[in-house]
């Protein structure tokens, strides 16, 4: 399935009922060199819009919000030693966590790729 996006610059890619979540190319550029990522614990139940992870660069810190509701099934442990993956491959190796979705219809409220591109463009 293709990716969906939030206006907080998170992406989600869903396979089956599990979604993988990370931050977009635009977001990593805005942050600069990522130095630390805190990912949620496995088993945590999160609601759409809830703050679940933190990403930090030298000069900025951002909360990552759950794009949809669900239960955390995996956090990207590799980011602890290689936070730079978020800069290098924000939609690949730099993923943050995986959620087992509780309500797939929530995906409908998110932007598709074209919508997100237009959104980023509108930010100037």
């Amino acid at each position, binding site marked *: 399935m293709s990716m969906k996006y939030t206006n907080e610059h998170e992406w989600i890619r869903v396979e089956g009922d599990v979604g993988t979540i990370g931050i977009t190319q635009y977001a990593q550029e805005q942050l600069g060199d990522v130095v*630390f990522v805190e990912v949620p614990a496995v088993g945590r139940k999160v609601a759409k819009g809830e703050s679940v992870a933190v990403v*930090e*660069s*030298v*000069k*900025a*810190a951002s*909360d990552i919000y759950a794009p949809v509701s669900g239960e955390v099934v995996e956090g990207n442990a590799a980011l602890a030693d290689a936070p730079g993956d978020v800069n290098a491959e924000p939609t690949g190796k730099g993923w943050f966590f995986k959620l087992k979705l509780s309500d797939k219809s929530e995906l409908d409220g998110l932007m598709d790729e074209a919508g997100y591109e237009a959104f980023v463009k509108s930010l100037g």
Partner: protein
Amino acid sequence: MRYLPLTDADRREMLRVIGAKSVDELFRDVPASARLPGKVAGLPDHQGELEVERAFQAFAAKNVSPANAPFFIGAGAYRHHVPSTVDYMIQRGEFLTSYTPYQPEITQGTLQYLFEFQTQVTLLTGMEVANASMYDGSTGTSEAVLMANRVTRRHKALISGGLHPQYRGVIQTTARWEGFNAVVAKTDVDGFEDLIAAIDKETSCVVVQNPSFFGHVRDFTKLAEACHAAGALLIVVVTEVVSLGLITPPGEMGADIVVCEGQSIGNGLGFGGPYVGLFATREKYMRQMPGRLVGETVDADGKRGFVLTLSTREQHIRREKATSNICTNAGLCALAFTIHLTLLGEAGFRRLAELNHAKASELADRVAAIPGVAVVNDSFFNEFTVRLPKPAAPVVEALAAKGILAGLPVSRLIPDDPSVANLLLLAATETATEHGMAPLVAGLKEVL
């Protein structure tokens, strides 16, 4: 006015460049109702150095300097000898008149001494990481409780009855207005307190002091184990940092956060401030620490250098989500601390601690021999509690009238507990002499 370099001619020329007729024009945004016709009324005009110095000498003359009196007061602030080198070095303008090292390329001096300071603090406390200092021990303790609340996501702090009463007051004030529960154990004069039974699943931390406010030296290993079993943190407070030269450090007892008042090393009594708070913890809690942190890195040429780091915890970036609202630390007091400790080194620091303990032991024996006076403590470092046959406050006043600064009547800091009325806290550091002890003992005999 000697501090103002601009001449009237300069001012006229600058106004011309600005295109303003007068300086009043620059203040035109001040509402008319708030514009003063001239200077603020009712205050004197400028004075020369000589006059200012005289005024301060007049203030000083109305005080009794500890240098001129037998002196035995401690209770969280201790009189030690500070080597001349310390005060000379901290007054170098490059240290004194620099600011927070925001530009690391031209503040490596500050950054390196803070890195050395952080390392010294970890060594003294037996902990893994330390920050670049807090305002003082009391505010550092309150920040430690807030940190424990963040780490454990719990909101109940258990406070020992052996904690300095004003430290306890600061925690209670923070608890009241920042919204957590501070449970205070009953005053622990005898040092037998056992807090293990009071720990429960809501407890975020237990706060103890070593040596305690009353001077007892305690082993908190079992308490640490009980805290950890319940998912709580153990916070150990040390108000006399010299004790760490002789006593097992809190880190070895299992403490999770250690806060010390660092005044004893490098910093004078100064009527209560500025002092310097030491703050150390386990590496796993590093990102939950308040305050500034200095870290090692390299520059563009690959040379070792130091920077402020992990600043995303702080208010200027995280704003309302910061770990603390703290902005400054106690930079210059931390410098005094680190220089003094560097002068002492391993051998000097240990010997200083031995000297303190020996002086206090001597004083305890001499005071215990006074009829009617009992030393409460079996264990102590350089301060202990004695029970007098009558209320301590008037005794101390009577001795002050004889020119003896005899210690702290516990009732001054615990005014609401009549059971402490007869207790006197006595401290003896390396500065205590026969010259001082003899008049104290004689004076006590006389007024009791």
